[in-house]
């Protein structure tokens, strides 16, 4: 029990450290990469006085390290600065979008699971059959496509050509026209398709392994109907691997969310990040990256800890 707590603590400390590294990368990139960060942020029309005020305000006249510590202090006390474009507090801009992005990620994960798990199971339980070959080839083909191609393809087919679904999610929110639920369909479907290959592959491998296990053969030989064999023997074993799959798909989800939100104009954090980059709105960019990075690292940590809690072998030694 003590060992488990110590393991938890160690992983958590590493996670916090990783967060600090990410925040440092964000700050130093913003600070050191542009030739003149103040100019880059304020634009060509700003006066020298405005530039100077910006420099002092952001702590740019101090060294990079001092600036980083000052910025970190601001961040930890909740002072995230104001958007250079809209002059509103960054927190106000980003937090409502966080809920939307989270919702999209969850929906995407659900859609992806609904497609990937049955397909993967069918392919794995009948491994090396023609069905398996067909499904696996489809998965490889889907995996080869970059996320934005999948999203744009869905957009063009369903929204532009067939006109079944709305093109932009943002328009429904702002104009109040159209069924708001429909706005979620295409983004969730796109995101789901993005994560299907990885999930399906894992489910397939697990299903084919378990199907070959002796206790399954024994059950079949004993005369238990195939469906009952599947339900009571194969599926519980597969479920154990689900957490592992979750961790792998997390990375794909985070990348996918940024792309899908941009393609569909979905009002989430990812879209805010991309448009702020285009606008050189560095306070917003910094906040979004740190926010998303924090989410990613924390979720990974949670999955890690969950796996440790589930697997007694890991609990004892810390390794498999």
């Amino acid at each position, binding site marked *: 029990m003590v060992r488990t707590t110590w393991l938890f603590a160690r992983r958590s400390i590493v996670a916090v450290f990783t967060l600090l590294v990410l925040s440092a990368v964000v700050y130093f990139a913003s600070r050191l990469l542009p030739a003149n960060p103040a100019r880059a942020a304020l634009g060509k029309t700003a006066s020298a006085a405005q530039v100077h005020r910006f420099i002092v305000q952001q702590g740019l006249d101090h060294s990079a390290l001092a600036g980083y510590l000052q910025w970190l202090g601001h961040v930890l006390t909740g002072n995230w600065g104001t958007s250079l474009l809209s002059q509103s507090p960054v927190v106000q801009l980003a937090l409502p979008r966080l809920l939307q992005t989270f919702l999209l990620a969850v929906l995407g994960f659900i859609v992806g699971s609904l497609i990937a798990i049955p397909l993967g199971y069918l392919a794995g339980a009948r491994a090396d059959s023609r069905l398996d070959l067909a499904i696996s080839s489809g998965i490889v083909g889907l995996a080869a496509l970059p996320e934005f191609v999948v999203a744009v393809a869905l957009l063009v087919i369903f929204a532009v050509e067939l006109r079944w679904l709305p093109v932009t999610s943002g328009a429904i929110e702002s104009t109040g026209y159209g069924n708001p639920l429909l706005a979620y369909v295409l983004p969730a479907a796109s995101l789901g398709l993005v994560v299907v290959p990885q999930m399906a592959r894992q489910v397939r491998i697990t299903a084919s392994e378990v199907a070959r296990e002796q206790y399954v053969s024994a059950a079949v030989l004993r005369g238990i109907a195939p469906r009952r064999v599947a339900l009571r023997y194969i599926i519980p074993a597969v479920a154990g691997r689900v957490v592992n799959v979750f961790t792998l798909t997390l990375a794909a989800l985070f990348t996918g969310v940024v792309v899908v939100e*941009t393609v569909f104009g979905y009002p989430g954090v990812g879209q805010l990040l991309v448009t702020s980059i285009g606008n050189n709105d560095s306070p917003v960019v910094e906040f979004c990256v740190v926010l998303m990075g924090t989410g990613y690292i924390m979720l*990974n940590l949670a999955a890690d800890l969950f796996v440790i809690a589930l697997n007694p072998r890991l609990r004892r030694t810390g390794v498999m």
Partner: protein
Amino acid sequence: MVPPLLRRVLSYREGRFGFALLIVIAFIVIGGPFIAPDSPFATTGIPLSGPSLAHLLGTDELGRDVLSRVLAGGRDVVLLPVAGILGAFLLGGVTGLISGYGGGWPDRVYTAVVNVALSVPALLVVLILVGVGKDSPAVIVTAIALVYAPGIARIVRGAAQAAGRSEYVDVARLRGEGVTSIAVREVLPNVAGTVAVQLALSCTQAVLLLATLDFLGVGAQPPSPSWGLMIADGEQIVVLQPLTLVGPAVALMLLALAFNLLSGALQRAVAERQR
């Protein structure tokens, strides 16, 4: 050592197909700008016109020949990521090789650093670096190198560590060979298979990552004929002239397919060789 591996890769159907695709893509990337009928930046036709003899894929919203732009855009899509991956190999591969073979406490420190670097989400790092540094090629190459180096470092280090413990290395050491000599003549050839697979996989990911960046508007800027950028622009006018979207999309998908098939075939070839 390389030709037998290549022969085995080509013996698989996916290897042959991927290799054939790769030849086609290489032709487009290297020779594209030379065989293109028009300059990718010049307005040579009526905007948004469909396919014709003068413009096989039609023209885009500014009247530029779509086919020429697709042929010219291959360079932007492929060269920078590949350069970035080579950089990642120099950075991660060399340090991984040394650390894995050497061992000891420096190796443990190195592993910890690499693990932390790996848990930082890649796209976010690239977005912030390229988003702030804009589309300077140096920034893009460096960003890609930094992001893929840890993954490569971990693989190479593992392989180097395994090779360092094997018998032929012990024999070489007993023969009195120096550390560098052992590293180059015994460890490196046996690590090369794994390294080749990782190279292929990383290149695939890096090319798609850069295409995604271009699409988001964070990487290449107009009027660059990068395929990702063309897809983003083409999406706006897909109803009027779908080929502006379909042309670069198909090219990109063929490229991704080629890389994926080859990576898969290479993986199989290396795995079977080690059995």
